């Protein structure tokens, strides 16, 4: 029953899934930190044009997709750098232009529409060793850059304005994150498909950050979750006739749902540790040990003044209140 897992196409699929499962959440962590969770989806749209160009010209759709996606990434960062409120709309225009342009181009390619299907929904069981090697090479590059430049990329994603005042080239690193995301999408399109790439970048991060307290830990946990989901997903499709890309994403979502109740508990415990803001610290106070002929109280003949949770009494030119066996001066 398990020998199917050792068949060449399955091994290729598992390797391709593993590298995607590791690389996508790594870049995804930066995107979630920058609050650009849906950027991967946008690149997926733009890549349609790339794939169409590749099919139309008879060159490699993957290479064409990478080229177009990187071009899109540079354009997006230029639009974002203007800092205009319209940047959001400009991105939408770019994304829809990408997918519409791709669909029109593909219609010129005759049988291209069928081929496009493999890129939209993934075709992990049909990929060649060359595809696997290209994917693995790109994934290693993505991982190497994301991890070695982590301090810089984190500083920029965590607080862009502050990072600027430390002399970091904020524009460059923002662009690098976008380019890395674009390349990740191109790599993952064979595995999970352009329409679901973004899921593999975001869901493992969402799963991880329920439990982690630091950025680095979130990234590593997300990589583990992504790897696990990708391997389990592909293995499942060896026994169940289901599309691998969608299965990987469902496994990933299942993992999130399964851990969510524990995550809620962890978060609640952490929130409970947030200290109360103390408006006024209790001050050290002077005490007086003078003898009293009577206990202060309503109608004792001394002026009572409300003071927080007790009443002070004016007595021989000072104010005091009973506290245990002595009087506090107030």
């Amino acid at each position: 029953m398990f020998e199917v897992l050792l068949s060449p196409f399955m091994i290729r699929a598992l390797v391709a899934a593993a590298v995607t499962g590791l690389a996508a959440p790594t870049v995804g962590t930066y995107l979630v930190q920058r609050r650009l969770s849906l950027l991967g989806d946008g690149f997926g749209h733009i890549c349609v044009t790339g794939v169409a160009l590749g099919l139309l010209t008879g060159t490699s759709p993957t290479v064409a997709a990478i080229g177009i996606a990187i071009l899109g990434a540079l354009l997006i960062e230029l639009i974002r750098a203007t800092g205009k409120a319209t940047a959001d709309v400009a991105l939408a225009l770019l994304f829809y232009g990408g997918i519409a342009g791709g669909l029109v181009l593909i219609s010129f390619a005759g049988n291209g529409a069928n081929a496009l299907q493999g890129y939209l929904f993934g075709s992990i069981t049909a990929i060649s060793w060359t595809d696997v090697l290209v994917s693995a090479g790109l994934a290693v590059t993505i991982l190497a850059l994301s991890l070695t430049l982590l301090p810089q990329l984190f500083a920029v994603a965590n607080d862009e304005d502050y990072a600027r005042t430390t002399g970091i080239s904020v524009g460059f690193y923002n662009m690098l994150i976008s380019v890395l995301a674009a390349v990740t999408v191109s790599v993952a399109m064979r595995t999970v498909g352009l329409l679901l790439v973004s899921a593999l970048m975001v869901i493992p991060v969402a799963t991880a950050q329920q439990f982690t307290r630091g950025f680095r830990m979130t990234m590593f946990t997300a990589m583990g979750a992504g790897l696990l989901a990708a391997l389990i997903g592909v293995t499942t499709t060896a026994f169940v006739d289901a599309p691998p890309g969608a299965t990987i994403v469902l496994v990933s979502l299942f993992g999130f749902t399964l851990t969510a109740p524990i995550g809620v508990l962890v978060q609640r415990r952490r929130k409970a540790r947030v200290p109360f803001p103390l408006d006024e610290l209790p001050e050290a106070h002077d005490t007086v040990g003078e003898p009293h002929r009577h206990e202060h109280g309503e109608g004792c003949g001394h002026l009572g003044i409300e003071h927080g949770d007790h009443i002070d009494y004016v007595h021989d030119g000072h104010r005091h209140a009973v506290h245990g066996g002595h009087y506090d001066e107030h």
Partner: protein
Amino acid sequence: MTDPQSGEAAIVLQVSDGAVSLAGRPILRDIDLTVRSGEVVALLGANGSGKSTLVKAIVGLHPLTHGEVRMFGMPLASFDQWHRLGYVPQRSTITQGVPSSVWEVVASGRMSRRRPFVPMLRADRDAITAAIEQVDLTNRTKHQVSTLSGGQQQRVLMARTLASEPELLVLDEPNAGVDLASQDGIASTLAARAAQGATIVVVLHELGPFEPLIQRALVMREGRLVYDGLPGPATERQDHDHHHRPAGRLPLSPGVAAPLDGGA
């Protein structure tokens, strides 16, 4: 750092004839300002008087539409010794998105002294540890910053800046929305830095626990500096929560509306 000829401390920060417009609207005008090494300067003024904008212009986050900022004698555009400058923003995005720990956020303050691809050195680690210690958060090093109180978060921002061991500290309302204990803590940390010779420019809404520290006060009103001198009665916060509306329009360039003109 004393000028051998005049005997005066070296100029750390200089704004000459500075003006800033945001989205085409003039916010700051005629700003002339010189801060010398070792000075502790408070920047005061009502809400909307332009304090934060001035501070952001000084650290390079808002470009000047007119005039020039010189940092340690260099024009800001060609300034490259960023580790000498430490900026503490009023608000930050450190609690957003993916969780980050106190250590990680403070470590990002070291970026002005680190080079890409070079692993963290012993000196970096020591500086980060020392900075966290100075703001009294050593027992929270591994905590997630978004689970800290507002005052503790402000102290994290402070530690992040101290980690780069800057000579000039520029702080934007470090006591806004911060509990008294943290305000005192921040003030005493600043006092320690000042005693070690750091230059400090701090935006304040009111002097509060910073009062004993401040040697010189600048007061802003409607985008201009209107007072530069010793802190005293002139700078004390007047208990006004409203602006007096002048009759008619303010004498500004034609076609430029001032915040107090009324209407749109």
